Structures are given as structure tokens and as C-alpha cells.
């Protein structure tokens, strides 16, 4: 008993002193991504991207009073609202100064409504792209470094038209992201004179998609557009369509772009095409190089956006001279947009110094960040084509 008491006291003491030190010199950023669930293969590179920005700032020693930045990872499960909000609550209870996340649109909306707004916490999502989030009342607390799917629908329609495709079959993953994107693609494609033969949902996490493939094949179309996830139903649908000879070419929106898809499907995917948020900015290359030096793949989807999200938090904090969400939140648009000195990835130390001296910056980052309207990315896209089992960027839009 005595031993237990001493041990408890010792732990309490050390915890207390850690807290005291933490207050002055530690900025905690929640990294709230779907480390399990439908996009679990993307989340590691996203987390690594965000953490790389934090490490860079910590190393520079120029944030606030030479504060260190500590990432706190937590899981959203991508489609699990209960898990995501519980973990967001936990991050705030643990003293997070900002939350990078969520990742998938549905959970992001849930975290925003149930946790961020009541607690006045700022969120920057690198990958939630549902058009619904643009109009959601957010009290100026929500930003995203990824563009809305409404824009992606237009881009996809343009690409389809340019490639001379007149009719498509369309299937989407049955959630906020998939439905929003499918609606955007359908309306944009029909607006430029295309035909959508069938729109059908598929559930993720099932192994058998014979029924969906059968319905899609029966409806026909030049190509099949799969607005899903590359780790989940999207892969199953493509595999099923190829095996039965239903479709040979596929249109792949952002959620389907990733290295694992061509690897898993093989050479049959060659010739399929799609688009993903990304720009030809100088930053993208620099970032890819920094990432490969750090030992992860910087071209993995939404990894660069995650780096930018973390960087925006820290730059805004520096600009406001505070790590209180109520104070730095308003600065996010300032640091992201012109006027000011252009900042690329790897130059966060320089940016912090300019801000400390009262200067102005225009953070470009790894994705050419330009926030418009309610705080979301303006949206440039990479047009991707699968060639020889690899995703290759053919054009920027």
C-alpha cells in the first residue's frame, strides 16, 4: 500500500511538472485521420505529411517562444461518426490547440458539428471534399486544403468530353463523399451533353459486387466511372467489371487514385484515367523530395494537403502570436493568400521569422494553397492516366 502511494505521488508530481512545462512551450496539434477503415492505406502518408511540417517547425525553433509542436494521432475510422467524435473530444480534453482532420467528409461534418463548434476549436481538413461542407454553418472554424467535389465534377466532365466519351455508367460509394461527388459528376457531365446510363451505389467492405457489376453492365456506357475508395468497393467493382468483361476503361475520381490500385488490378487498368486535387506548383516537387528523404511517399493522395494543413495552423498561430483557436483562426486566410512573400514547403522557418517581424506571407506550400469563399481550396487538379501499371500525371487543370 505504501509503495503504491509513493508511486502514485511520484507519477502525479512528474505529470504536474510536465504540464507546467507544456503550457509555455508546447503546441499540440491533433492529427485526426482514418487510420483504420476505408482509406487506411492513405492515412499513414497523410499523418506523416502533417507530422513532417510539425517537425520542421519544431526544429526551426521560431514558433512563438521556441515552442515544440507535438502531434497527437487519433482515429476517425473514416466512416465511424461515433469513434471520430469521441476521439475529437479526447484530443480537446488532452489539450489540442488545433485539429488537422477529419479525413472523410461524413465524419468531418460530424466532428465539426458535435465537437469543434461547441468547443470553439479550429479544424483544417486535408481531404474532406463533400460540397455539403461548403455551406455548413461553421462559425469560421472550418477550413480545408482540398477543393470541394462540386469542382471535381466539373473537371471530370471536361476530361470525359475532351476524350470523346459520350455516355458513362456511374457507381458511387454509399456515403456523403460518394453521393456528393456522383451528383456533381452527373450534373456537370449532363450539362456538357453527356449521357449517364445508370447511377448506382455500392457498399464498402463487402467482398461480392456481382449484383452491382451485373446492373452496371446491363445499362452499358463507354466507360464506368467509379466514385469510390481504392481500398474498398471501388476496387471490387473494377475487378468484377474486368473479370466479366463488362467494362474495360474506368474513370477514377480522387478517392480512387493511389498506387495500390494499379498494383492490385494489374495491366488491365492501363488506359483508365481520372483526376485528383493537385497542382503543378513548384511546391509539389519540393514536397515529394522532402517526403522521400523522410521515408514516405509524398505523392500519395492528400499527403501534401496534410502537410499544408499543419503548416497553416502553425503559421496562423505565429501571425496571431497565440495558440488560442479564437485568436489564430482569423489569421488562417491571411497567411494562406496573397499578398506577401511566397512560401514553399521546407521554408516554414523562414515564414515564421517573417511573421515574427510583422511581415506578410503568401503560403503556397505543397499544393499551391489558395483558400477561397468559406475557407476551402480553389482547386487545381492533376489529370491522371494509368500507363504501364503506374499513375501518371498527363496534364494539370
Amino acid at each position, binding site marked *: 500500500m505504501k509503495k503504491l502511494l509513493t508511486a502514485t505521488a511520484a507519477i502525479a508530481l512528474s505529470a504536474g511538472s510536465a504540464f507546467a512545462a507544456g503550457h509555455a512551450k508546447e503546441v499540440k496539434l491533433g492529427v485526426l485521420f482514418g487510420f*483504420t*477503415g476505408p482509406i*487506411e*492505406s492513405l492515412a499513414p502518408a497523410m499523418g506523416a505529411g502533417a507530422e513532417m511540417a510539425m517537425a520542421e517547425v519544431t526544429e526551426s525553433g521560431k514558433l512563438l517562444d521556441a515552442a515544440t509542436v507535438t502531434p497527437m494521432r487519433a482515429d476517425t475510422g473514416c466512416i465511424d461518426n461515433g469513434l471520430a467524435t469521441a476521439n475529437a473530444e479526447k484530443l480537446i480534453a488532452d489539450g489540442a490547440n488545433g485539429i488537422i482532420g477529419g479525413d472523410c467528409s461524413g465524419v468531418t461534418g460530424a466532428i465539426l458539428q458535435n465537437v469543434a463548434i461547441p468547443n470553439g476549436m479550429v479544424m483544417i481538413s486535408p481531404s474532406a471534399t463533400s460540397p455539403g461542407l461548403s455551406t455548413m454553418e461553421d462559425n469560421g472554424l472550418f477550413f480545408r486544403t482540398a477543393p470541394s467535389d462540386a469542382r471535381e465534377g466539373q473537371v471530370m466532365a471536361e476530361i470525359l468530353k475532351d476524350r470523346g466519351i459520350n455516355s458513362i455508367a456511374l457507381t458511387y460509394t*454509399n456515403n456523403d463523399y460518394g453521393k456528393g461527388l456522383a451528383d456533381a459528376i452527373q450534373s456537370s457531365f449532363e450539362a456538357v451533353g453527356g449521357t449517364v446510363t*445508370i447511377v*448506382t*451505389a*455500392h*457498399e464498402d*467492405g*463487402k*467482398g*461480392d459486387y*456481382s*449484383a*452491382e*457489376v*451485373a*446492373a452496371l*453492365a*446491363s*445499362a*452499358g456506357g463507354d466507360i464506368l466511372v467509379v466514385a469510390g475508395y481504392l*481500398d474498398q468497393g471501388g*476496387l*471490387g467493382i473494377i*475487378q*468484377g467489371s474486368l*473479370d*466479366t*468483361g*463488362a467494362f474495360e476503361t474506368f474513370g477514377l475520381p480522387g478517392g480512387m487514385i493511389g498506387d*495500390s490500385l494499379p498494383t*492490385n488490378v494489374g495491366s488491365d487498368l492501363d488506359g483508365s484515367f481520372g483526376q485528383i486535387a493537385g497542382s503543378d506548383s513548384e511546391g509539389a516537387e519540393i514536397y515529394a523530395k522532402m517526403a522521400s528523404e523522410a521515408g514516405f511517399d509524398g505523392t500519395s493522395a492528400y499527403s501534401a494537403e496534410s502537410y499544408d494543413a499543419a503548416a497553416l495552423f502553425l503559421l496562423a498561430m505565429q501571425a496571431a502570436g497565440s495558440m488560442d483557436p479564437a485568436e489564430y483562426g482569423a489569421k488562417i486566410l491571411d497567411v494562406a493568400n496573397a499578398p506577401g512573400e511566397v512560401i514553399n514547403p521546407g521554408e516554414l522557418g523562414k515564414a515564421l521569422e517573417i511573421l515574427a517581424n510583422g511581415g506578410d506571407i503568401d503560403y503556397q506550400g505543397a499544393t499551391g494553397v489558395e483558400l477561397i469563399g468559406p475557407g476551402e481550396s480553389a482547386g487545381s487538379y492533376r489529370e491522371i492516366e494509368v500507363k504501364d501499371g503506374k499513375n501518371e500525371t498527363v496534364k494539370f487543370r
Partner: protein
Amino acid sequence: MDFLNALVALTNFVLVPGIAYGSQLALGALGVTLIYGILRFSNFAHGDTMAFGTMMTILFTWWFQSMGITAGPLPTALLALPFGIAVTMGLVVGTDRAVFRFYRQQKAKPVVFVMVSLGVMFIMNGLVRFIIGPGDQQFADGERFIVSARTFKSLTGLDEGLAIKTSQGITVVTAVIVVAALFWFLNKTRTGKSMRAYSDNEDLALLSGINPERVVTYTWLIVAALATIAGTLYGLDKSFKPFTYFQLLLPIFAAAIVGGLGNPLGAIAGGFVIAMSEVMVTYAWKKVAEYVLPDSLAPSGLVQLMSTDYKFAVSFAILIVVLLFKPTGIFKGKAV
């Protein structure tokens, strides 16, 4: 010619995938039904037992491939299967000794067993993810198709292609062999008979000198083999991902219950009923109708009874109807 095209389209998109999926569900449901019949509880860990067995098979497959051992045109996984089964047998018998035996000795109620199996499910779930990771694993090799859509078209000159994957062929053949072997075992061997006796009337079986622990062990061994085979076939046909196997639990239980829990024949019938209903009711008959009907009658719509969104609703509607009118399932199983 048009009639042939319609027939081929139907076979390609409905019959072939339906039969392969049905065989996989049937093998899974057989395992569930055996546990229910003999140990008298619904084993929620079955999906994850399948995942574990498949994982072991995959690991052995990779090992064989690295040594250059392959099965020619057949997937290497078939060679690895017996080893996978052996390890899985070890796991489930170990789980039984460590966990389920304790509750058996306590004479715990079935609902307690169900909850315990839920716990075992989560542990196995974690174990599989821990060892092989949560991602997709492709382990099929060898010839991919028996007949591919393109070859079929050029061979027959028809507009519609027919694809039969090797994995689908293997699935059906293996399912037939396994089911035949299982029925022979249950009906002809001494151990099989003692298992059936134990299932029918536990007290009477004990009185006539049947060793219950032996029966239980044999049941787990058979279930491990069935689960591993079902999981591996499913993984070969689709792909292996732990989360998908966890989700498979639902259609497997639906199959077992529709057929009659505790009745092996019912499990097989149930598997096909569930698989076919998922594919057939939601099929868009447009293409078939265009071939069969004269042009003037050709439909402009999709001729789809209901959207594929409802395919699970269909199988569960069947489940409810069966339970309402025949609570013991299509074949007489134990009352649920």
C-alpha cells in the same frame, strides 16, 4: 443467336458469380451450423476464423512462391491450404481449451457463449490485423481464367462474352468435394455418428458412453478446416481483407438460418438462396430483354426490379419471411 446472347449475358453476370458466391457462403454457413448443432451456440468468431485461416494460407503461399514451388496453372494457395488448415485447427482447439471449455464446465447459457465468441472474434480480428495488416492482399496466381470474356467472344462469334475464372471453377469443385466428404464423415464414420448423436440428444449420447470432449474437439477441427477452405476460396475469388471477412458474418448467418440452423443440408441451400437472391432480384434485365424481345418491345428503362442498394434488404426479407412461416428454416433445423 439473340436468344443465345441473352443466355450468355445472364450466365456471365448472374449464374456464374451467383453459384461461386453461393458455394463460398455455403461452406461458411456449414461451419456456423455445425457449431450451432453440436456446441449449441452461434459462433460470431467464425468470420474471423476464416480470416485467420486464409491469412495462414497466404503466408504459406508466399513462402512456397519464394521457394519457387507453384501448382502450375492452379493457384499455389491450394498447396498451402493443408498447412493453413493445420495451424487454424491448432488455434481453434487452443481457443476452445482456453476459453470455451471453462464455460462448458460452468454449464453457461447459450447467450453467454455467444458473448464469449464475440470476445474471441475481437481478439482474432486484432491478431489477423497484427500479423498481416489491415490492407488488401492478393495471393491468387496461376491461370486467371478458364474462359475469358474476350476468348469466348472470338471463339463463338457471339456479342456477349462469358468469363469463368479459375477461382470460380475451383470454388465449385472444392465445395462439392468438401460437402461430399463431410456428409460421408457425418453419416458413415463412428466419430461422425457420435457427433450427430451428441447433437440430437446430449444426455442420451453421454449415457451411451460418448466422450463429449472428443466430439467437441472433432467439431472444432472440422470447423477450422471448413472455415479455412471457405476463406481461402473467397480470397482467391475476390481478395483478402480482414474487414471484409468480418462483414461476411452477416450473409453467412443469414444463409445458415434460412436453411435451418444446425442442419448441414440447410446451410448449403441457404448459401445459394442468399447469393442468388442478392444477384438476381437486383439484376437489370435491359440487356437480356433487348436480345429476346423484338425491337418494337425493347425497353428504354433498365427493367430493374429494385436498385442494387437494396440487395441486402432482399436477403434479409427472405430471412424474415422464412422465419415467420418456417421458424426452423427451409430444412428442419433447430428452433432459433
